[in-house]
Structures are given as C-alpha cells and as structure tokens.
C-alpha cells in the first residue's frame, strides 16, 4: 500500500509538472477572458471595490479617477497580452512615496480578485491574471 501511494504520489507530481509545462496557447489571456469589455468591467469593479474600502481608499484620495481608469485599462490590457499600448508611468513611479505595506497590498489583491469575480472571470482565469501581475509586487511594496 505504501508503495502504491508512493507511486501515485509520483504519478500525480509528474502529471502536475506536465500540466505546468507551457502548452501552445491558441489565444492570449486577454482574448480568453473576453477582451476589452471584460478588462473595462474589471477596472470599473476595482474602482468600486476600492472606493468602499476605507483602508485602501486612503491611497487613492488624491487620484484622478478618469486618468486612473484609462491607465489601469491599458495596463491590464497589455499585461494580459492584449493589443494596447501602456501610456502611464512605471509601476515604481505610481506607487512611490505611498509606502504601501504588505497587509494593504494583499487586501488590494483581494479587491482585485473580487473585481475579476464580478466581471465573470473563472477561478483559473483569475489565477492567470494574478500570475502576470505578481512580478510587479516588488515595485509596489514599501516604496
């Protein structure tokens, strides 16, 4: 039995690794989640989520929402592989001086997840969006 479990453990690991290997993507994540209308819905939901969260809204008090909406749309579009050009500032520049702590960062991720959920993204799609955004965390925390 131990051997059987060991074997299945190994098999599962191999299966997971095989799944994790890059397969040929027929379309970009941008297309998969529904393109521009979905991106715009996520942005709108996110703005809404933020405006109802006291802790996180603090960071956005002086934000020009019209500009934020435009740049956030462009940014999400580009990072998910959509046909857009990002015309905003670098992530470092945008978050500099705000000294965002880890707890607030993670709360904001939760708000973004809510925004994606409400825009109709499935759990795997949400994970993939988070995956392309995750490397930017270093330019956002404690700057």
């Amino acid at each position, binding site marked *: *039995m*131990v051997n059987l*479990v*060991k074997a*299945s*453990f190994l098999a*599962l*690991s191999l299966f*997971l690794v095989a*799944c*994790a290997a890059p397969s040929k993507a027929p379309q970009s994540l941008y297309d998969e989640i529904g393109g521009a209308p979905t991106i715009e819905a996520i942005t709108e939901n996110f703005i809404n989520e933020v405006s109802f969260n006291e802790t996180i809204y603090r960071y956005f008090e002086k934000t020009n929402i019209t500009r934020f909406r435009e740049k956030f749309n462009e940014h999400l579009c580009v990072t998910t592989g959509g046909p857009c050009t990002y015309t905003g500032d670098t992530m470092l520049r945008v978050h500099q001086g705000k000294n965002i*702590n*880890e*707890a607030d960062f*993670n*709360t904001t*991720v*939760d708000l973004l*997840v809510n925004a994606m959920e409400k825009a109709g993204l*499935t*759990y*795997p*799609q949400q*994970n*993939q969006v*988070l*995956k392309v955004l*995750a*490397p930017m*965390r270093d330019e956002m925390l404690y700057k």
Partner: protein
Amino acid sequence: MSSKVVKATAAGCVIFLASPSMAAEGKILATAGLSQLEGSGGGGLTPWATLAGYDSRDETAASFFMTDVNVSDYRLSSIGVATSFYDRVELSLAQQTFVLPASLITGLSLSSEQIKQDVVGVKVRLYGDAVYSAYPQVSVGLQHKQLDSDFVASYLGAKDDSGTDLYASATKVHLGAVAGYNLVWNVTARATKANEMGLLGFGGPDNNDYQIMMEGSVGVLLSPNWVVGMEYRQKPSNLSSVEEDNWTDVFVSYMPNKSVNITTAYVDLGTVATKKDQKGVYLSMTGYLW
C-alpha cells in the same frame, strides 16, 4: 527545561506580544496552510516553510488546532497552539496523546494505555514569499520533543526520552500552473533521531545518530477554499525490536475564510510498533484567533 515552564512562557509571549491592532488578515487565503501533527505550520505530516498564521510583516497571528488520527490499531490525537510574528518567526506548542491497543498494554503490563509527548517548535523564515518571490520560500526550524514517560521507549530499546529534530523547508505556490489552478509544493529535510515521531523514544540499537529524512507535499487549489493533495514522510529505523515505515497521506482541505480550516485525509502509516497496515482517517481543525 520542563514543559510547564515552556507552556507558561509561550502563553506569556502570546498575551504580551499580541494586541488586536496587529491582527493578521494580511495574507492571501490558504497561505497559512494547515497545522502539522507536531504543531508547526505546514501540511499535516510535514512542516512547511510557510508560517502558521495569516500575518504579514507588520502583524502577528495566533492559532490553535486539534488533530485526530484513527488507524487500524492506534489512535493519535494532537492539540496545540501556534503564534507567528511579523511573518518571520513561528512558535508552536503541541501535546500528542498516543493511545495503544489493549493487546500491547497487557503484553507489556503497562500501567497506562497512553503515551504523551510535548513538542515545542520554533521556525524562522529565511527567504521569500511562497506566492510572490521568484524562488521558493525557505525556512528552518526545530521541534524539541519530550515524552512524559520513557517506559515503552526504553522497553523497545530507545536511548532517550527526549530529542530535537532540525529541519529546513522550501515551499512554493505556482499561480495558475495547472490548467489555470494554483499548485503548491513543499520539500522538507529533517535531521532526526526520533522513533515514530518520538512517541517510541529517540535513537536505538540500530542507529543512535542524526539522520536526514526527506518529506514532501504537493497540492492543488481547486478553488479559493478547497485544496487537495498528497504527502510523504520518510522515517528512520533505529529500533531493532520493532519496524518503522514511511508515512503517506492523501488530503482534502476546506478553508471557508481566514478564521478556520478543516482537513481530512486518508493516511497510511505502514507498520507501527509491531502492528502492520496502519491505515485510517486523519481529521484536523485549525482556528485562527487573530
């Protein structure tokens, strides 16, 4: 160091260091993991590099857990508390109660049907964030164990009734890695002399030195609230009087929110103290106080 002193100190730390304003909500759901049999944050059988609470680097966290393992001839329950500070240090305390079958009790003319063991754990995160850093999160830790009575251990040939395990763990969450689902894995290397986790003492006639044992877990998050996976724990074989086998399990974990998680698993412990094919159900609950 008596276990009472340790308990009192740990309780003191918990009360002194934690104030509600530092309450931990900071991490993403499920990243606090589960409570390990010996009290550390981890999977069920093996400690992970992640700490036991949802604390970010500005917060503290505390949790308690209850675990019950029912296999063919034995029952093991483990209860304990864990605190973590600023996503850096974890302190844990567990008491294990190992209930022996009647045949062994009469065979050895034991006065008690139970073996109790206290485990004090310390873990320090050295590097990384399991979700966000490019490389896995890495932690090192120790588990100091003390049996309440050395009768069974010494009868079986164990050299000591207390011992300290040292371990290093690496844990990584890969976002969207398996058809869009998040994959989590952990590998732990443990230096130990413990027989059956220490319940049958430490060291023995076949070996009385530290040996490196490998442990591993792999899981998939099916949703933000459900995790399924498997675990493996290699074990030493120090006693010539009884066999000792490696452990495996298959688990399902439910985390409805950041206050509680419930885990059930099917465990295969192999031969434990002369009894073969020890398989059964593992049930565990962790409650997060803050």
